């Protein structure tokens, strides 16, 4: 049995419920199938599944239910259960359930047909069979994709508390229920990358994810990184070109990215046969051959397209499970999905989007105390609770950007919270390591090509992640502000042919 059947059943559930409990539901059915053997037991199991589809499923779709949920008092609590259990489903809901049940019954018959095969294979071999199993997942992913995009989020209910979950456990569940999980990061953040490093070392997550696609990796160096991540000895000077030579970075690249590469390599060394591949999603510009801005134009202009292409070429055809990491500005939804998510959905994927967020809900000083009780790092779903109802821009930018009509629930599926805004720090390459060093000179050469200016290296190893905007900052900052150079004409050119990988 059939992961195909389980995925098919799961697709019948509401998207929000599926995200929260999909993996648990699948596990429950697997456990029952494993433990209940024999014709009578299996027949009873099928009857239970059908009964649950007919009577349990319509209640999950009851539209008023979520909006009335409140943890406050027993009286309100009672209303939840009335809606959840005692209210009779509408005729339309029952008819829908009957139709779904017929489909479910057909699947169940298929389940019987496959039972012998399922016993031979065994659920415990799932990890080894994941590529084959994932092929079966694909049709249901398309269904889930449709529901995720087409169904409007349930009406925001500001009083509804979110379900605050341990971030790692939430990501393990996300990667179990979605073959592609997108994480919109905040650049260089210490607390966020400390968690990401712990995530890739987590045995449950490592066992489930096949690829991690990163913005902070120049795909020109995929070959070297593949060898190094797999545990081979490759000179670090060659490997670090991957994160230092990205087109998307202006200025010194934060050490958090190198630490993340090392964490993936270490996790692979500690694991058994399953190895996670680090896929480099930045275009293949060769800084060592770049002389002027025209050489960079096509790469700068097609960063999102190339990132999506890497996923299309290296992840989806192999039916892999992947974590995608890129700046939140690339991933977050505005008027619907961004370019990368659109392309992935068009290819049949059903991405789940998590973004880094803060406790700032308006101007710089508008800190929301409701976050204070959260145990961090935490992930919360954004549909139907007060977090989803917050204005997205201040939350995502730590109060650096003004609020707009965009709400968090429209910007992403879930939010990572690693601590109060004022506790967050950015990790920098210390000035002492840049002054008069080859890397520092190369940084200034690149800045002159891209921005027409150089910089004086003054930053300490750590600085506040979101510094209070101050008008005088422009005069005292470390960057010498000069007029912006004109965009290179080559930005309108397509990407050049990909050179041999290094």
């Amino acid at each position, binding site marked *: 049995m059939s992961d195909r059947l389980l995925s098919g059943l799961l697709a019948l559930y509401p998207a929000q419920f599926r995200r929260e409990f999909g993996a648990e*539901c699948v*596990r429950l059915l697997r456990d029952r199938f494993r433990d209940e053997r024999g014709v009578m037991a299996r027949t009873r199991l099928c009857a239970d599944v059908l009964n649950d589809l007919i009577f*349990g499923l319509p209640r999950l779709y009851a539209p008023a239910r979520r909006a009335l949920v409140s943890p406050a008092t027993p009286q309100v609590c009672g209303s939840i259960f009335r809606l959840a259990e005692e209210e009779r489903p509408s005729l339309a809901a029952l008819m829908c359930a009957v139709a779904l049940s017929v489909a479910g019954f057909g699947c169940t018959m298929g389940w019987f047909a496959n039972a012998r095969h399922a016993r031979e294979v065994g659920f415990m071999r799932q990890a080894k069979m994941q590529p084959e199993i994932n092929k079966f997942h694909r049709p249901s992913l398309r269904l889930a994709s449709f529901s995720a995009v087409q169904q409007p989020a349930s009406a925001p209910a500001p009083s509804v508390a979110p379900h605050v979950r341990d971030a790692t456990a939430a990501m393990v569940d996300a990667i179990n229920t979605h073959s592609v999980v997108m994480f919109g990061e905040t650049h260089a953040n210490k607390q966020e990358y400390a968690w990401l490093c712990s995530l890739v070392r987590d045995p449950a997550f490592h066992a489930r994810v096949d690829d991690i696609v990163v913005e902070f990796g120049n795909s020109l160096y995929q070959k070297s990184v593949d060898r190094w991540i797999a545990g081979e000895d490759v000179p670090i000077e060659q490997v670090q070109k991957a994160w230092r030579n990205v087109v998307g970075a202006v200025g010194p690249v934060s050490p958090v990215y190198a630490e993340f590469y090392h964490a993936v390599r270490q996790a692979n060394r500690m694991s058994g046969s399953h190895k996670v591949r680090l896929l480099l999603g930045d275009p293949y510009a060769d800084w060592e051959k770049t002389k002027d801005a025209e050489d960079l134009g096509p790469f700068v202009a097609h960063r999102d397209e190339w990132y999506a292409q890497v996923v299309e070429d290296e992840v989806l055809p192999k039916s892999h499970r992947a974590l995608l990491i890129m700046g939140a500005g690339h991933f977050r939804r505005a008027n619907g999905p961004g370019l990368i998510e659109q392309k992935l959905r068009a290819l049949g994927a059903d991405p789940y989007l998590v973004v880094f967020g803060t406790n700032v809900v308006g101007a710089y000083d508008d800190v929301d105390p409701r976050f204070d009780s959260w145990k961090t790092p935490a992930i919360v779903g954004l549909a139907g609770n007060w977090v989803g109802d917050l204005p997205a821009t201040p939350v995502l930018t730590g109060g650096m950007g003004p609020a707009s009509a965009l709400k968090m629930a429209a910007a992403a599926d879930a939010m990572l919270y690693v601590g109060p805004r004022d506790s967050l720090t950015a990790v920098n390459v210390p000035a002492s390591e840049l002054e008069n060093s080859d890397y520092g000179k190369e940084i200034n050469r690149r800045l002159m090509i891209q921005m027409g200016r150089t910089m004086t290296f003054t930053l300490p190893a750590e600085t506040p992640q979101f510094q209070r905007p101050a008008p005088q900052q422009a005069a005292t900052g470390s960057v010498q502000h000069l007029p912006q150079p004109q965009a290179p004409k080559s930005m309108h050119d397509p990407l050049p042919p990909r050179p041999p990988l290094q």
Partner: protein
Amino acid sequence: MPRRKLDPLPSVAFQILLALADNSLHGYAIMRQVEDQTEGRKRLGPATLYGSIQTLLEAGLIEDVDAPDTDDSGSERRRYYGITGAGRKIARDEAEGLARVLRVARVKKILRGEYV
């Protein structure tokens, strides 16, 4: 009188609270415990079980808890649920309400035997 419709606590929610009264359990174990408690009369399917769990979580009657050291689920980490103080109080109130009903049933000689 909406409150009257809401009382007693629905049986599935009550059974889940009872299942968690002395142990934190994952979903499958809750299902099995409820099956035992009801002598096989209630076997909760995924929608009923997790729909109720979701509601109980949102109501603050149960909570996510860390897996116990004895958890052997390996790489497929399970979610464990534990009863909260509010959940325990509601379960106790519900049980006391049922006990009152049973006392009346016994006085009226509707209930036979020494069940309670």
